[in-house]
Structures are given as structure tokens and as C-alpha cells.
């Protein structure tokens, strides 16, 4: 039920926010882009059960790929998305071959390490990436040759919303498909999946690669809309925040990822506007609160309330 309604409600909310906050389109677009990143994480973590703290590696790879492609080859946005998706996928595939051999802490650590290596490479390859100054000078052509990126960010908003909707639809189909079912199977019982003849390792590599592609698309969106790629794209903080948004919303249900992103970004906006230095207090407390009091995320709140209501009615 919620699975059917929630995506449309969120879409309607996005449109409503567009009209409600016409001067904050950059912020709203940022939310849409983060939602794509968090969705990629939901595929990898929520469905395939791979605990990663390095999703920024693929986001950054996509961002730099899209930026460099636009500067040196072709400034068409859609082509840039494709290139970035491929870049994210290739990096995820290669690193996944190593990372997914490990488990538990070592796996988590390796995912962090992959992002750290990327960060360092981008930092050192100053001639190509602009190093710590960031990659500048990205000028995009109109989307589909029709819609010019404008100053206020209207095109950017609709463009990002369209990509988010496409990614959401793709993932919805994917999770209902045999592939998605097998990922849930692996998440629940890897031994059993092996016992029914599945190569769990390759299935996970595939999910990780797809997640990398989607994260790459998110990075490309960011590069194209903001016309800037910074080293922060590879940062641990970005990976950690994406993870927090996902857990805040609730894993394994795509709309939870979007909801979590939305709430987190608004809290961030509000807290950072009030006192940027104390933002880390807010996020730290938020994370602890979620882990202890809301382990299944916001999407579980209605069920929890219902159960509470039922108990009260019963007593």
C-alpha cells in the first residue's frame, strides 16, 4: 500500500516545494541529487546487505568523469550522465572484486579505503582535476538541446527531478525482478542462496556495480548543475551522511531513502543556518537517536504508532 502511494506523494511534495521555495531551488536540487545517491546506497546496503562507508567513491568518480567529459569532449548533459554511470560502474566493479571478498569490519574499512584512495588521486592529479581548488569551467549545453540551464536553477531542478524519478522507477522494477528477489535472499541468508546454486559473490559484485553506476549518475548531476566538482565529492563525510540519511528513512524500501534524504537535508539546512559550527552536534545526536530509538527508520513510524495505538485501545 505505502509502496504504491509513497512515491507519488513524494513526487507531489517535490513539485509543491518547487513552488513554495522558489528562491531555494539550489537547495532543493541538492536534495534531489542526494536522494539519487542515497537510493544507490539503498540498493547496495538495503537490498544486497553490503555495509559500505565508501559510496562517495563512485559519486566522486561520476562527478569528475562528467565534469571532464563536458570540458574536454562533449557538454551534452545526458551523454555526461551515461559516461558518469559507466565510470561509477567500472570503479565499483574493480574495487568490488577485492572489497567483497572481505566481511564485517574489514569490508567496511576497505570501502572507506577505496574512497580515500580516490580522494588522494584526485588531490594529486592537480593538472587534470584541479586538485584542492576543484574542477572548474564546466559549461553544459541545454538538456536534450532544448532546456538551457538558467541562473535561478529551474532547469536544474526539473532535470534532477526527472533523473531521480527515472532512477526510482528503475530500482522499483529491479527490486521486483528476479535479480532483486535474489538480493533479498542473499541479505536474509547467504548460506541458503549458495545452497540453491547461486554464486553469492558475483551477485553481490553485480549489485555493487549497479549501485556504483547510480552513484556515478548522482555525481554527474551535481557536477552538471553546480558546474563544479570539489574533492569533497570523495569525502568520508559524504559517505557517512548518505548512510545516515538512508538509515534515518529506513532501508530496503526505496521511498524510505528519499524520505530520509529529505528530512536530513532540511534538518541540516535549518541547523546549519542557525549555527553552522554546531551542526555536528545535531547530526551526532540524530544518529544516536535513530540507532537507539528508530532502528528501522522513519518508514517504520506508522507501524510503530499503530501498534502503540492498538495497545492503548486493548488495555
Amino acid at each position, binding site marked *: 500500500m505505502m509502496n504504491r502511494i509513497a512515491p507519488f506523494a513524494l513526487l507531489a511534495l517535490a513539485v509543491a516545494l518547487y513552488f513554495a521555495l522558489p528562491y531555494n531551488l539550489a537547495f532543493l536540487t541538492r536534495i534531489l541529487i542526494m536522494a539519487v545517491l542515497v537510493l544507490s546506497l539503498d540498493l547496495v546496503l538495503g537490498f544486497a546487505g553490503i555495509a559500505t562507508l565508501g559510496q562517495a567513491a563512485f559519486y566522486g568518480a561520476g562527478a569528475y568523469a562528467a565534469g571532464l567529459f563536458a570540458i574536454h569532449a562533449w557538454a551534452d548533459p545526458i551523454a555526461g550522465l551515461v559516461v558518469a554511470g559507466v565510470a561509477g560502474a567500472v570503479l565499483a566493479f574493480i574495487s568490488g572484486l577485492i572489497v567483497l571478498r572481505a566481511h564485517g569490519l574489514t569490508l567496511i574499512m576497505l570501502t572507506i579505503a577505496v574512497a580515500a584512495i580516490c580522494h588522494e588521486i584526485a588531490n594529486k592529479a592537480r593538472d587534470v582535476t584541479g586538485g584542492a581548488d576543484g574542477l572548474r569551467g564546466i559549461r553544459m549545453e541545454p538538456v536534450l538541446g532544448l532546456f538551457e540551464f538558467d541562473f535561478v536553477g529551474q532547469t536544474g531542478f526539473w532535470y534532477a527531478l526527472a533523473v531521480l524519478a527515472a532512477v526510482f522507477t528503475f530500482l522499483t522494477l529491479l527490486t*521486483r525482478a528476479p*535479480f532483486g528477489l535474489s538480493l533479498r535472499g542473499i541479505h536474509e541468508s547467504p548460506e541458503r542462496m549458495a545452497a*540453491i*546454486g*547461486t554464486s553469492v559473490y558475483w*551477485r553481490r559484485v553485480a549489485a555493487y556495480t549497479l549501485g556504483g553506476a547510480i552513484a556515478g549518475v548522482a555525481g554527474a548531476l551535481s557536477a552538471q548543475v553546480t558546474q563544479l566538482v570539489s574533492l569533497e565529492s570523495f569525502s568520508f563525510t559524504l559517505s557517512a551522511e548518505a548512510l545516515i540519511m538512508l538509515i534515518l528513512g529506513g532501508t530496503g524500501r526505496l521511498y524510505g531513502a528519499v524520505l530520509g534524504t529529505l528530512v536530513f537535508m532540511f534538518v541540516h539546512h535549518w541547523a546549519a543556518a542557525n549555527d553552522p559550527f554546531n551542526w555536528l552536534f545535531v547530526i551526532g545526536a540524530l544518529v544516536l537517536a535513530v540507532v537507539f530509538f528508530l532502528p528501522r527508520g522513519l518508514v517504520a513510524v506508522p507501524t510503530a504508532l499503530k501498534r502503540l495505538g492498538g495497545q492503548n485501545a486493548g488495555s
Partner: protein
Amino acid sequence: MQGLEVRGLSKKFGGLTVSENIDFDLKPGDRKALIGPNGAGKSTFSNLVTGILPPSSGTIRFDGVDIGKLNEAQRVKRGIAKTFQITTLFRDLTVRENLRLPILERQGRGFAMFRRADGNGETEAEVAALIDAFALEPLADKRVADLAYGQQRLVELALTLALKPRVLILDEPAAGVPSSETHLIVQAIEALPPDLAVLIIEHDMDLVFRVAAQIVVLVQGRILTEGTPQEIAANAQVRDLYLGGHGHD
């Protein structure tokens, strides 16, 4: 030779020998039971045959082909499947989804990304047939975690059969099932396809004597003796060691 042919199979964990020089055959249509006290090495033997554990020495042939180098998934594809001693079902999925998964994998559709998992007529027909065969219809759309233990055991059996195995190893199919429900398991085993090769590992002697035509007794990793249920029941050594003596728990 058709079926499973094990020769000189041994397994050591460090200094501990858990399987020692085991020779064992299982042909299509066989109904064999493997019994023995706790820690005799029964589960280890089944893990060696299914490729979960690598043997220390010995050969395993299936239909005359050496399968010793194949991993678990590859052996499943050849037709060797086992149920687990403790159920490792997909607890958060429904019964139907639990059965759909192995069928999709067997049909090689596991990587399909743009079709609905429940959209294939052939797959769904097989799912329905299994649900029918195990009388699971009323439970088909419940989560496995919400089923009674005996029912979970049935799903476990149905799931393994969904792999269309030619050799089926049942590791304690009745473990943990209340006695009021064991008849369900017995019925399910009796209804298995006649040409399937079945090996049952079980402590419940009533069940063993009802379904097995041949019994192999394993003690401390070695085969003590092998025979029909009558022969085993009459064997004094077995009585001492296992049946009559200190019992199995």
C-alpha cells in the same frame, strides 16, 4: 555408474578426524538413512558431498564424473542438494517467494532485471505445483518467520525439491518438529519422486524405520555397518553403541 559414488573419503579438522575412509554409494531410487551418535560426523559427511567443506582426501563421483573440485553452487546445478540441520530459510520472505527463488535460479533467470519475479508462467506453475504437493496453500503468502516450526521444515523440503535434485540429502528433517507434526514430514518424504536418490540423516528412529530401505551406521567418522532396517535392529553392536545404550540425546 548412475548416482553417487564415494571412495575413501576423509576429513580432518586440525588433529581431529571427523570422517575416516568412507565408502558410500547412493543410486537413483535409493532410500538410505545415515545414523549415529551426536558428533559422529554425519553433517560433516553431507557437507563433504555437497561441497560445503573440502575433503582432506578421497573421491566423490556423480554419474561416473569426479565432482570433487566443484563448489557448492556447481554441485547444486549437477543435481545434488541438501536441507539444513537448522533451517536457514529466507525468513522475511513469503513461502511463495521462498519457493520462487530456487526455481528462478535453476532456470537461470536470477540475473533478470526488467521482468517481474512473479511474471513468468513456467516459474509460477512450478511454484504452484510445489505448494500443492506440500499442502502449503493456506500459508503460501505468509512470511516464513510467522510459520510454526514443522511448517518451516516442510517449506525447507519444498524449497530443496524446487532445485529438481537427483540426489537429496535431508539433514535431520524432523529435528525440532513437535511429534504431533512429524507425520507431515514422513508423508512428504514418502511422496518424494520414486527415482530420486535420498539420504536421510536422522536421530528419530521411528522416522528412519518408516522411510529407509537401507541404513548406514556411522561412529566416530567410520562406517560401522550397513544393512536393512531389520538387520540393523538385530545388530548387537549397533544396539550397544547407539540404539539400546545411552540413547541419542
